């Protein structure tokens, strides 16, 4: 029963969501609307699950006196303060409220800065690792340099052939390769979805067969 019930629900929901697309009758569409609402509720619970999981992981690190437990304190303090500010501080999450100020002046600059660090590491990695050791690597290097130049105004200034070459690379070989990958991924997704709906693939339940 523990395995049969989720498998049965999965089958019913999967088949219904596929079949409803072809049945415009209002009763079927009404059920479909309810499914969509339930889906959103489940997504919302996933946030709660994620938060509880985060707290558990870091609580255990602190309790077991792990070497880097200081970072766990920071995580839990940040989480607690933002939750507290959002729920209990005046203005909740309105513009200008303490929550909004913490978000705009702390979280936004920190996240943007972390992502911006990539530029420095990419430059260092490009210098150290980008080598024309083989024919394929050479072609990749040349294409990368053309696209890098073509996507900035200085490329237009150097020669009009650079943006033309960039456009060709993006709309011909890149497009062809991406299309091939997407078709493969799409077919794989369909096969996996069918396997899940029909109960053949059960890894999502945990523990296998």
């Amino acid at each position, binding site marked *: 029963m523990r395995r049969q019930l989720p498998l049965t629900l999965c089958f019913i929901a999967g088949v219904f969501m596929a079949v409803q*697309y072809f049945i415009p009758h209002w009763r079927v*569409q009404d059920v*479909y*609307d309810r499914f*969509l*609402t339930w*889906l*959103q509720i*489940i*997504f*919302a619970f*996933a*946030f709660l699950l994620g938060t509880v999981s985060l707290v558990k992981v870091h609580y255990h690190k602190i309790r077991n006196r792990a070497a880097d437990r200081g970072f766990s304190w920071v995580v839990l303090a940040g989480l607690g303060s933002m939750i507290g500010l959002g729920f209990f501080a005046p203005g909740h*999450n309105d*513009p200008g409220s303490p929550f*909004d100020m913490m*978000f*705009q002046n702390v*979280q*936004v*600059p*920190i*996240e*943007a800065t*972390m*992502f*911006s660090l990539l*530029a*420095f590491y*990419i*430059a*260092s990695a*490009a*210098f*150290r690792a*980008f*080598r*024309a050791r083989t024919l394929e690597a050479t072609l990749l*290097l040349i294409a*990368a*340099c053309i696209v*890098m*130049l073509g*996507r*900035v*105004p*200085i*490329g*237009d*200034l150097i020669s009009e052939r650079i*943006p033309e070459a960039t*456009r060709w690379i*993006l*709309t011909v070989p*890149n*497009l062809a390769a*991406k*299309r091939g990958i*997407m078709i493969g991924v799409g077919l794989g997704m369909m096969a996996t979805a069918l396997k899940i709906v029909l109960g053949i693939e059960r890894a999502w339940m945990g523990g296998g067969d």
Partner: protein
Amino acid sequence: MSWYDKLLQVDRRWIFLAIGVAVVVPFFVPLGLPVIVTEPVQGLYDAVESIPPNDKPLLLSIDYAPATLPELEPMALAILRHAFRNDVNVIVMTLHPAGYGLAERAVRGVAEEMEQVEGEDYVFMGFTPGVSAPILGLGVAIRNVFPEDAYGTPLDEIPMMEGIRNYDDIPLAITLAGWSAAEAWIYFAREPYGQQVGAGVTAVMATDYYPYLDAGQLQGLLGGMRGAAEYEVLIEREAKGVKGMDSQSVIHLLIIVLIVLGNVAYFAQRSARRKMALEDA
């Protein structure tokens, strides 16, 4: 130690410093490089431009997080300025939990700058959980997904939402995202409902969307800060996108120089080692 060994062993902090200088200096010494508009950006601009004024609204889904804000916020601001300039109403929403604050600041900032009135010229719906469910749900009824706006006002009490029921009443939906939101909008809005969709994504992701652009599933595509800069040129309001192009030009040139130097040093080292090996033999 020969020159190529010294070069290949250079401390990476010198490279970090060079990148830092390359980013900062153009902000103080602008190069004023012209930005040429490309077809994907022109396509999105034309799609927004074709929306009749004071009629059906543009749907703008600001789905980016703070990490991708530097690339995608200039796009949001440019599109909002374009829509407001043309008296096109805008529905703003987000599918990303961290996008709420960013979407709100973008729409309120531009609305204040262009004296637009909330409820009459724009409405901010806020965040809704899920990806496929809300996008599909908007095609059935907007009020199923957003019964009220972000501030608790029922949609039926918002003047600009009168008669706006679902995708049939939205000529264009644009998503700005640093993750696969654009694909979700194509799969769940464009294909089942025929909703016209445009996208703004990070430069790294832009190459993934050319198949959709080529197939006509996307009306237009803004890729990275260059996309934002091109859009700013089209609306004749240069802002962060255009300003960032000078730095980006210098950095791209610098990275190419570093790649060339690295390869020159590598081949010189390899050649020297082969020569030594032959002499030893």
